């Protein structure tokens, strides 16, 4: 159990790596209005677990930057704040998507190159 836990350094690097990915993942789901918990569930269903203490503040920050818009919905159940992409957010998401694809392709090539080298030297 203990041995399978990532090292402090490894955990930190993996958090760094995920940080930017969480933003693009969040924006990708907010073409339709979702509230914090439902967004988290949807991300988790697709395989991306995000800490709640990370996700909810992120939504606020993105809203402050004008990338998201939000409204309270007070129905029969408990009140919920629904977030969705703003006009600017849609544009930002498109730019991020293009960058993401480039990045994934580049990193993929780099890693594939490494594997080739390792195989060659072994």
């Amino acid at each position, binding site marked *: 159990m203990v041995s399978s836990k990532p090292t402090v350094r490894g955990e930190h690097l993996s958090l760094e790596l995920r940080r930017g990915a969480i933003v693009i993942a969040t924006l990708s789901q907010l073409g339709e209005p979702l*509230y*914090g*918990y*439902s967004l*988290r*569930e949807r991300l988790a269903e697709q395989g991306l677990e995000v*800490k*709640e*203490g*990370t996700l*909810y*503040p*992120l939504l*606020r*920050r993105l809203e*402050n*930057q004008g990338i998201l818009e939000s409204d309270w919905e007070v129905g029969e159940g*408990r*009140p*919920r*704040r629904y977030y969705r992409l703003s006009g600017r957010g849609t544009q930002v998401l498109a730019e991020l998507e293009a960058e993401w694809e480039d990045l994934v392709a580049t990193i993929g090539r780099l890693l594939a190159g490494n594997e080739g080298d390792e195989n060659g030297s072994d």
Partner: protein
Amino acid sequence: MDLIERYVQEVARRLPRTQRNDVARELRSSIEDSLESRAGVPLNEVGEDTATELLLEFGPPREVAGSYQSGPNYLIGPAHYPSFLRAIKIALAVVGGLIALGLLVDAASSTGDIGELARIGAQAISDIQTGFLSVLGLVVFVFAIIERTSTPKWLSEDEWHPSDLPPVIENADQVDRAGTIVGLVLSGIALVLINLYPEWLQIRTFSSGEQFSYPLLGSVVRTEVMILNLYLALGLVLGVVILLRNRWQVQTRVADAAISAILVLLLMRLWSKADQLLPVRGDLIEAGWPPGQASSFAEVADEALSLALGWLLLAGLLVATWFAIRKAIAAIRTARDRQAG
């Protein structure tokens, strides 16, 4: 549930007042959603263990509240921190020097009585406390304002351009920090002495247990004292400026040479009236000296002191002139290097 309310409250109280209620409401609603879904039962049936587990996953309130903040949550950030430390050091050195001077003056003028020395000691401790704390507070206050109001062009990442980089500090343009700070403290001490404690700059004599004195900075040198004040005050300002800029530049070089020229002028004036600087017998008697003391002082002054003072002033004048010329040359050299660079 009490545990959730306590958690929400701990996060909310760390947030700016304007978003506190809104964030608390959203956080509460999200936690309740999570709890119900996790436990698979309505909120009022959820056990405290489940809530504890969930809140541990959310993370410490301090961290969560920190993630909500988008502005700076520090008083003085990395951009201004080095200048802040530099300013603190200069300010503390200057205040320390002034307090030490006050202590020396008090101690020297005391009667040596234990009670009085204890009082002076206590006063010094209280001066150190108030002096250091208020100067620290002032520097922190000023830098906190700078942090919130200014983004220097070369620090703002959006507009940064390599041409904004300050030029490389040539060896010759490096500031001798320790020397400059010592100079600042000495100038401060001299200014305080000349203007607040002129009685320390007197010729003294004792006769049958009574003390007689004659002020060194009397009416003969009134203009010279003004020039001296100007020289010291300008030197003080220049010292602070070069410590803050941490390099010699053309303007500061020119100012330095000009201030040195003031010293040359001052010494020239003093030298030209060297024979009038020391009091003659009549002056001393007018100041209340007993005739015997006045005569013997005037005799020594006339024969030896006056001559020695004259030579001393001449030597001072030559050294000051040499320094002034060197500084003028340094200013020209720095200006030429800038043009070439």
